[in-house]
């Protein structure tokens, strides 16, 4: 979680309240559609451009699909040390399907349909010694081991 010794990989995508992490998205004030990340307006044509307001999402969901990336992405992705890792799509109860790195299990050990839980984990340590955090999903504890 963000402390003076950690920073988010990008500001405004997640936060921690009372020790609990959540993704920060938006909810249409007209039709209730949820979005991630935050956005200004709803894209449901029925809403005719209605506004969307910030909202916290998750932290639980269900794994919709996953893959393991075997080759190192371009340098903008600063994961260090680098090793093949899983990326998944997680269905949140708010109706948003979110893409995220997966953690909490070996890369090829994930299962579609598993309950998942949001975690904020370091991608790397920056030049100032701070952990750079990103959002990930892990299998819910009672479902592993």
């Amino acid at each position, binding site marked *: 979680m963000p402390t003076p010794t950690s920073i988010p990989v990008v500001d405004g*995508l997640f936060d921690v309240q009372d020790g609990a992490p959540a993704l920060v998205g938006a909810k249409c004030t007209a039709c209730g559609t949820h979005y991630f990340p935050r956005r200004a307006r709803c894209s449901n044509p029925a809403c005719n451009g209605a506004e969307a307001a910030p909202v916290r999402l998750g932290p639980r969901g269900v794994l919709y699909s996953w*893959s393991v990336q075997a080759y190192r*992405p*371009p340098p903008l992705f600063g994961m260090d040390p680098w090793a093949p890792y899983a*990326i998944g799509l997680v269905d949140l109860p708010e*109706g948003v399907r979110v893409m995220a790195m997966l953690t909490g299990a070996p890369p090829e050990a994930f299962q579609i349909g598993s309950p998942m839980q949001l975690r904020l984990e370091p991608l790397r340590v920056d030049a100032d010694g701070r952990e750079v955090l990103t959002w990930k999903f892990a299998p819910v504890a009672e479902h592993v081991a």
Partner: protein
Amino acid sequence: MRPVYVLGVGAHPWGKFPETPQVQLAAHALGAALRDAGLGWRDLGGLVAASSRFEGGLGWGLHANELLQSVAELGIPTLNVGGGCAAGGIAVHSTALMIASGQCEIAAAVGAERMPKGFIPRPPGTKDDPTDSDYLRWVAMGATNPVYWALEARRRMHEFGTTEETYAAASVLMHRNAVGNPLARYRAECTVAEVLASPVVASPLRLLELCAVSDGAAAVILGTESAARRLGVPLVRVAGYATATGSFGDPATRIPTISTNPVAGAPHTSEVATAARRAMAMAGLGPEDVDLVELADNSVWQVLAWPEMLGFCEPGQADWMLTHGEFDLDGEMPVNPSGGFLSFGEATTAQGLLQVCELAWQLRGQATGRQVPGAKVGMSAILGLGANGASIVLQA
């Protein structure tokens, strides 16, 4: 709207051509299409370019203008259209409208591309912008393009029981078709075992199950029926042409977004499904009338999923169709007789035009080595960045 016909088609082979500037690839392809039609540059009444961001176009996406300034300053109307990988299909659509609306008698569409190596990067000069999902997908999770297809492929295995062997068989089919296509970059046959032995790039997808990036160029010349008859070219009509964008609730996770808001019952890859439906409706045809399809096989997943999406078989039935030879050249529904993206490698803006060239060669009976017997109706379907879809239906 008056009917539109294919007057000529032409292409530059796909591959890597470090010594050939983008505009020269474009001139080669359009020159070939002009010769095919029996026309000269000065016969063009309009020019539409599928606009690339990788090279050429005077640095500002003005590829049609650069081509005219290089070869023939005709003063004709031009259009430079974006649309990511769908730009070639969109360009054919715009060109058809030029003819159909009466604005000109003969017009051309061209797409030519020299791609950077490796994973397709962000556009040149892009700033790091936290509101840009293309920035977010890279910086926060390093999601390469193949991961997007891999997520679909894994889900299909879950929903329909598709096996890794079936995915591999889709690659085998594409490569077998390409053996007969001198324009393709990869023309060697391969086996399921060889595909399965190729390195995993993004599980469950392997190197031979994903399209590479290539250089290439293709051009299509369209015109009125009277122009076609005057030139004496085989009569191939552009019976349907449509473009579309994504619909709200579409469950597809689009490159480069990092989320979706799926709505129950909403169509997947709706930009392509909608474009295809509109093109078929315009042609007054149904899936059962189509003799072959050229679809955008960025990966083997599309070879199975898209024929279902386009209505050529029921959801989940494509595996059986593929493994029983029904997607073969002599099958019930031939898929990508050209060899597809998997055999060409993707040259983004050129790809949608190459599809239409292949349809024309097939309907004329000129697809030596890969001919679909008795082909009378061909359809293309292509997807581009930004939720762009396009579909062209040709009829002989």
